[in-house]
């Protein structure tokens, strides 16, 4: 079965320190990978995606993620955390095996990781 795992329910980081939010996936073929962020009582905001090409992907708000095919991981990183980065982060995968005519199919989400950045 296709799945996405975010092994940490919560990540605590001091402001200014680097942060990593982990994500691993189990999908056949070469998936499309996404990170979204959810602030309280808000919808999901797109951060970044990996489709193909360079394994290091840069996204919004200084976030980046590295695709590692051998480890089936797509960890989210930021060199220096801000208090305003505190939110719920979701890793998601869009399985590529179906022909979606150029757009993504439905997303399979991880359970989310709550990031807390303290001053």
């Amino acid at each position, binding site marked *: 079965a296709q799945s996405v795992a975010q092994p940490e329910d919560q990540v605590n980081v001091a402001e200014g320190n680097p942060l990593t939010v982990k994500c691993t996936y189990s999908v056949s073929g070469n998936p499309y990978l996404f990170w979204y962020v959810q602030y309280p009582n808000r919808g999901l905001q797109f951060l970044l*995606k990996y489709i193909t090409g360079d394994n290091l992907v840069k996204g919004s708000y200084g976030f980046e993620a590295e695709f590692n095919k051998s480890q089936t991981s797509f960890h989210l990183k930021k060199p220096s955390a801000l208090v305003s980065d505190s939110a719920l982060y979701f890793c998601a995968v869009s399985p590529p095996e179906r022909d*979606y005519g*150029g757009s993504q*199919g*439905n*997303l399979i989400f991880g*359970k*989310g990781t709550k990031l807390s950045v303290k001053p």
Partner: protein
Amino acid sequence: GEEVAQTPKHLVRGEGQKAKLYCAPIKGHSYVFWYQQVLKNEFKFLISFQNENVFDETGMPKERFSAKCLPNSPCSLEIQATKLEDSAVYFCASSQWVEAMDTEAFFGQGTRLTVV
């Protein structure tokens, strides 16, 4: 519009009542998705549309749930005879059709359905 608009923001229904949620996708986007986010933050895919056609309904409960995307109207998700377990936040998302390139989905702010 430039954002996915969902209405209402909050909806309270007694058990057994009908609930109807609306979603206006971003103009020009061909795909619409509905997701259900339950209390433990888990997202469950329900259904997707390509324009007005059902594209993927593998996540849709066969009973009580239905959805439509008609031309020149907001998309809708309807739950007949709501149950307590239907309480969740329902998110709509839309994405653009772009040949040979996958595009990200843009999410609305959600409708919080509370069944009492």
